[in-house]
């Protein structure tokens, strides 16, 4: 219960808390105690990094999946094969209704009526994303995420040259936006967020051709390059919270294994939501195995970068079978 509460509060924007000593299992305490006497050997860490094979294994798989899903819409429409019709906001996969949970929520709030087709689509997608990890929608499907990743690379390159400096915001502002956009939809009767959502705009542009709305997306990307790293996903986008909530109890997640971790912190440097990896800081893990929290997008960047395999994908239902 304590884990779920912490996971949910982190999703809403609270800073991660250090576990009390009595909340740490004896096995984990033992490892913490042993590691306190160990010094970080950077040469060894560097060697482990160099020796690690397939450094971009999950990145490649993820980008391929993201491009595949988005291009499936295009191919389906272009060749009129009715495989995946519509756009990311709502679609039909082989005739089955699918509705993006956040778009559906905005429509329900604005329209105040729920049609059976929309309900079917929403429930289908809810179950699907519950099974595959909630925010995995963000990193494995959302086309804006990919653009944003490229913008992030430029940002980091410029930051290295000391030409830009990341200006952080308070993460709780995303929760404030969530409430604001929900209230706006309900009060005005317009799906206000949908009009500015880069996910919908980019998805439609890929399928139906370029639009002026892409200028808004470009503005967001420039903001992320020159002002604040990954600002939209980190501080604004309500879609992330919606899918984050879906993923709180999801069996699909990244799990942290304390034992071999060197605590050098490379995972936190590549992470979109580094607060979920605070558990990897020396002495912070409450158990020998800890699932990463709901805000995690299951992108696998940490899995790719971890030299000791201390972060790994897990499907918890399968783990129980072992």
């Amino acid at each position, binding site marked *: 219960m304590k884990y779920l509460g912490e996971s949910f509060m982190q999703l809403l924007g609270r800073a991660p808390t250090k576990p009390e000593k009595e909340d740490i299992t004896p096995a984990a305490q033992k490892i913490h105690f042993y590691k306190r006497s160990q010094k970080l050997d950077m040469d060894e860490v560097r060697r482990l990094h160099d020796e690690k094979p397939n450094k971009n294994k999950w990145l490649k798989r993820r980008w391929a999946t993201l491009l595949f899903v988005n291009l499936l819409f295009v191919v389906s429409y272009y060749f009129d094969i009715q495989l995946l*019709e519509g756009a990311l906001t709502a679609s039909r996969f082989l005739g089955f209704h699918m509705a993006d949970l956040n778009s559906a929520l905005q429509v329900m709030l604005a329209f105040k009526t729920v049609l059976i*087709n929309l309900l079917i*689509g929403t429930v289908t997608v809810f179950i699907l994303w519950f099974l595959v990890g909630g925010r995995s929608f963000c990193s494995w499907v959302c086309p804006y995420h990919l653009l944003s990743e490229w913008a992030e690379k430029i940002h980091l390159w410029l930051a290295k040259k000391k030409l830009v400096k990341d200006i952080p915001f308070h993460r709780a*502002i995303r929760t404030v936006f969530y409430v604001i956009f929900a209230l706006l939809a309900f009060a005005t*009767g317009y799906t206000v967020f949908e009009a500015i959502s880069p996910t919908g705009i980019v998805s439609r542009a890929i399928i139906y051709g370029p639009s002026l709305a892409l200028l808004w997306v470009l503005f967001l990307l420039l903001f992320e390059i020159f002002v604040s790293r990954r600002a939209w996903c980190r501080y604004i986008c309500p879609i992330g919270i919606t899918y984050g909530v879906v993923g709180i109890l999801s069996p699909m997640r990244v799990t942290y294994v304390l034992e071999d971790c060197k605590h050098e912190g490379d995972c936190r440097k590549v992470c979109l939501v580094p607060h979920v990896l605070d558990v990897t800081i020396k002495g912070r893990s409450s158990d020998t195995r800890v699932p990463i929290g709901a805000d995690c997008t299951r992108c696998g960047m940490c899995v790719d970068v971890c030299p000791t395999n201390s972060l790994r994908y897990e499907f918890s239902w399968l783990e129980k079978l072992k």
Partner: protein
Amino acid sequence: MTDDKSKEKPARKPRILDRKTQEARRRFLRSLGLAAGMVTASMVGFIPVVRGYNPRLRPPGALAEDEFLASCIKCGQCVQVCPVEAIFLADIMDGFGNGTPHIDARAQACDFSCDGLQCVLACPTGSLTHDTNYPHQVRIGFAELARPDLCLAMQGKGFKGRIRAQEPGFKGLFRYVEIDRWNPLPITEQEFDREICDLCIVHCPIEIRRNQCEAGEPPAGDVNQCPPTRAIGLEPDPGGGMRPVIYEGCVGCGACEMACPVTPAAIVVDMTKNADTVTA
């Protein structure tokens, strides 16, 4: 007294905050600024909607405009199923209407060549209401003889040749049932020879259906497809020519506007008379 003052002094001094607290404060204020900026940016979308900058013909079965904008999930499934590709998605200049479907009747009207109202069936949210089953139940708008002086029939003139064939970029499609039951054909490829121009009536999907029903061959063999009231017909005008008169059965599909051979079109769809203002 003096002792008291010296005691108070340190308290009056402005508190020197440590860097962490200072940074936290700045971050909080910045975040408020971000919220204010983003909400303002999102509310700009109100302007085109409230001002009605871009009046739009919505696809068949569309709810009243406010309800339509509330319920449309902006997926474009209606765009994908339309056989004549009449539907386009609005851009960001439409504000909250960004991504919502609309029809430009002059370029490509809905000619109901799918018969089954595919766009309505495709709509996942009921923005195109599933209460609509047949073309004659639709109310996209209402045709109007906006420029009677340009109308050939009003001048007592006929029409010979191809419609809008010289117009660059016009690729309008129409299903001529007697030529091809299944595939809509380019309008510009058809030869016409009318003694009095009645192309608006010839292309009216409602009139075509009524004629089929009168001939005992209702569309798809379904008598429910038969429109109960007429949509358009020529009547003698006091001015001497013939006037295209629009009747109650008009659904505002815009086929007449697309097929009107003069430029600009003499007959257009009046967007103010739609599902909002006139009950079908």
